[in-house]
């Protein structure tokens, strides 16, 4: 067995029934080489303090449950390893910019509403039945949108985005990336419907290209790109409507 070392994990605690402000609590956690921050939290929950609250599920960086601020950086705790922080302590806080429900669990309802607002589903030209078979789509056509379809909705990008922190009305990186994912899909004909979201003050125009969202994305989605290329689309749409008043429909 690898030797067991002890690392200090400092967690932000907040109990909505008794606290008005959060505080920090430290735990001494034995860890081995391959232990993730999540496994450290699980150790605390199982052996030291069953009241520590955090979300997790797949522990392989695909379900998007376990995002938190690890030493100030938005990370998936299952995909962040204690070995990389030892011998210093690890400080774990809930994701920035979201209301905290309890300890490390944040309120994600605002994101879910925003996701819904961008119509993140295929809006086909004409509805067809499965009997008519699949659409044709070449790998190159897929390449136009595929990376944006890889978003796991982990919300690290929202925690990275100061514009979302400053203005909660901003639609935000992941939702706008998904909007673009459908707009860029050759099978979709719903761009005109989604243009309204893009064009609004809180659509792509809420972004100032800080681009930290793309930096922290664990799946290489690059939401900043999805948003900013749509600034050009929105601009075209703005001016073209003067040329063809019914254009785009």
């Amino acid at each position, binding site marked *: 067995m690898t030797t067991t070392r002890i690392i200090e994990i400092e967690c932000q605690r907040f109990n909505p029934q008794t606290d008005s402000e959060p505080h920090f609590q430290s735990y001494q956690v034995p860890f081995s080489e391959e232990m993730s921050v999540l496994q450290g939290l699980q150790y605390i929950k199982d052996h030291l303090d069953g009241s520590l609250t955090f979300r997790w599920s797949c522990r392989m960086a695909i379900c998007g449950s376990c995002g938190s601020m690890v030493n100030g950086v938005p990370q998936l705790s299952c995909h962040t390893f204690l070995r990389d922080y030892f011998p210093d302590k690890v400080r774990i806080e809930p994701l920035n910019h979201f209301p905290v429900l309890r300890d490390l669990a944040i309120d994600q309802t605002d994101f879910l509403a925003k996701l819904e607002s961008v119509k993140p589903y295929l809006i086909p030209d004409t509805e067809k039945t499965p009997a008519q078979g699949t659409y044709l789509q070449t790998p190159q056509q897929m390449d136009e949108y595929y990376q944006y379809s890889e978003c796991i909705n982990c919300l690290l990008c929202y925690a990275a985005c*100061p514009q979302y922190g400053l203005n909660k009305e901003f639609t935000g990186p992941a939702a706008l990336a998904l909007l673009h994912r459908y707009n860029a899909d050759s099978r979709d004909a719903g761009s005109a419907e989604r243009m309204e979201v893009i064009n609004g003050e809180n659509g792509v125009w809420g972004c100032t290209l800080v681009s930290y969202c793309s*930096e922290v994305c664990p799946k290489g989605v690059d939401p*900043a790109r999805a948003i900013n290329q749509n600034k050009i689309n929105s601009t075209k749409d703005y001016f073209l409507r003067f040329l063809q008043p019914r254009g785009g429909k």
Partner: protein
Amino acid sequence: MPAPNLLNRYTRPMEGWWRRNPFYLWYMLREASCVFIIAYALVLLCGLYRLSQGEAAFNGWLAALATPRSIAFHGITAMMVLYHAWTWFKVMPKTLPFIHIGGKRMPDAAIVTSGLAAAVVLSALLFVLVWSGRS
């Protein structure tokens, strides 16, 4: 214990957010470059005004440019505009749709490099243009 109907929510305040992460500091520095770009545009505007007033006035403007304070200001401005230029090209790929050349997606690094190359070429041209007018 009864289920609480109204729960506290805690939202971390945004005060001083840009100090929380070096990435944000660099971003704020980039945004701050705008002040220097505005100031420089005003310097040019001032020069244009002096130019419209005649040779003596224009020479006064030129003399003001040579003061240590002005040199210091332009030194800082040059650095800030240079930083602006660097960040501008670095994020340029994010503002563009995917560009396909011969069925292959153009890598972001190539877009950044072409932007920087264009800046270098145009800057060299500008320099030569000014240099060629020496008497």
